[in-house]
């Protein structure tokens, strides 16, 4: 029990670090369109280690944050993040969620699907949608997946547990 609580605290520390990275380091990185989405990485790492309900709730909260900061179409981010986090949580039962590359692939595919949903729901035209999904989203998915790999390698021991265990 004590060990599980300590592990949860350690993971909470990692997620807090990701939040700080997202809001303090990300603006200093290269282009905002392709820099890793640290919040999304945190969400996916959490979703793959928790139940679908908790993942959906976390996705909703992250999406609400995104909507509050980019209110192009309020609700689009919440919807997309909820769906992606819920699917990621179910997906870990199908795939080998403990594998590093599977985790990274989840992040990359999840981010691309998130962008697809956000753009589709917010009524983006065909060509901007195509350009976004063909160019910027894959680049951001790649950088985010690489960063997720780095986080998992550095905090490998801490991420081996499941939060709903």
């Amino acid at each position, binding site marked *: 029990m004590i060990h599980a609580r300590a592990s949860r605290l350690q993971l909470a520390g990692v997620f807090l670090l990701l*939040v*700080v990275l*997202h*809001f*303090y*380091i*990300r*603006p*200093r990185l290269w*282009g*905002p*369109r392709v*820099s890793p*989405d640290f*919040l*999304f990485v945190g969400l996916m790492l959490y979703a793959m280690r928790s*139940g*679908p*309900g*908790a993942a*959906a*709730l976390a*996705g*909703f909260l992250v*999406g*609400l*944050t*995104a*909507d*509050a*900061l*980019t*209110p*192009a*179409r*309020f*609700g*689009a*981010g*919440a*919807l997309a993040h*909820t*769906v992606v986090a*819920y699917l990621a949580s179910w997906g870990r039962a199908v795939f080998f969620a403990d594998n590093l590359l599977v985790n990274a692939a989840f992040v990359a595919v999840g981010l691309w699907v998130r*962008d697809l949903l*956000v*753009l589709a*729901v*917010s*009524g*983006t*035209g*065909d*060509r*901007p949608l195509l*350009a*976004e999904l063909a160019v*910027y*989203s894959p680049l*951001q998915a790649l950088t985010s997946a690489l960063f997720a790999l780095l986080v998992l390698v550095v905090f490998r021991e801490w991420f081996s547990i499941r939060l709903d265990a």
Partner: protein
Amino acid sequence: MASASERSYTRRDTVMFLACLGLALIGLVSPDSWGLSIAAALRESVLAPLVWLQARAEEGRTSRNRLRTITSERDSASYLAQGIPSLLAENERLRQLLALSHRISTAYVAAEVLHQAQATDGRTLLLSVGARAGVSAFDPVVAPEGLIGMVLSVSERTSVVMTWAHPEFRVSAFTVSGNAAGVVAPFAGSAGAEGALEFRGVPYRDSVPVGTLVLSSGLGGVYPKGIPVGTVTGVIREQAGWERVYRLLPAANPGSAAHVLVLVAPSGDLARAFPSDSAIRAQRLDSIERVRLADSVAQAAREVREARARRADSLAAAAARKPSPRPVPAVPPEDSAR
């Protein structure tokens, strides 16, 4: 067969998922004003520390860039104007060329752009200033290159800008030559370049050549007159022989804007605040020419001074070399009597 606890676990998950989905859908179908109010409330309460953190990060980044720019400007100006009395005037001139804020005559608030990770960033921008700094809804937002958009909603410390990439963006505009007027909107066609604007409602008889600058006309009361909106790159379509729609290359790019100016009390004609590239180049060449001229005058003066100094030196040396007159020996009076 699933146990009762597993079934309730799955049911609870499904209920939570559906609840979150339902709330998101409510957010989607609710009126825009509700969404903007909720977003503003969240930014002012729960997300305030995160927005503050990002604003500090942006500030640090832009301050570093500005310092680098100022340092390089200072270095090049010093290099060009070394030892020339016109250094101060030249620096001031360069500043006037580079800083839009010096040229704008109306009141403005400088703001950092807080770019987000979402794919729709660019359609709306989050700024680091809000009502506390005097920003209000419908204030125009400009970059040194031209029009970015207008303030859509304002909270205490932040505000949201609707950029020209937003589907609902419209601005009344005219060509810099004054021969055509119309409305500029985001390019909505299925063919052509992305991130473009279209200049609609131009009468068929008024043909606009490629490369013509299009400025805001000031009609409608939101955008003041004279802000560059874009440059004509071609004709998109002609409607039934009475109207031409032109494609514009936007003057400013919201996706890469790091800091912008919010015009809080826009009035008058701002065309003089946005000189064209050729005008800026001409002014720069002119200023460099002035520096060169001042340089040559200063050099000539220096040479004259040096020549004078050399002449003075040689005169002094010649004076030192010249033998002094032999002293006349004093003759005692008795010797001369003999």
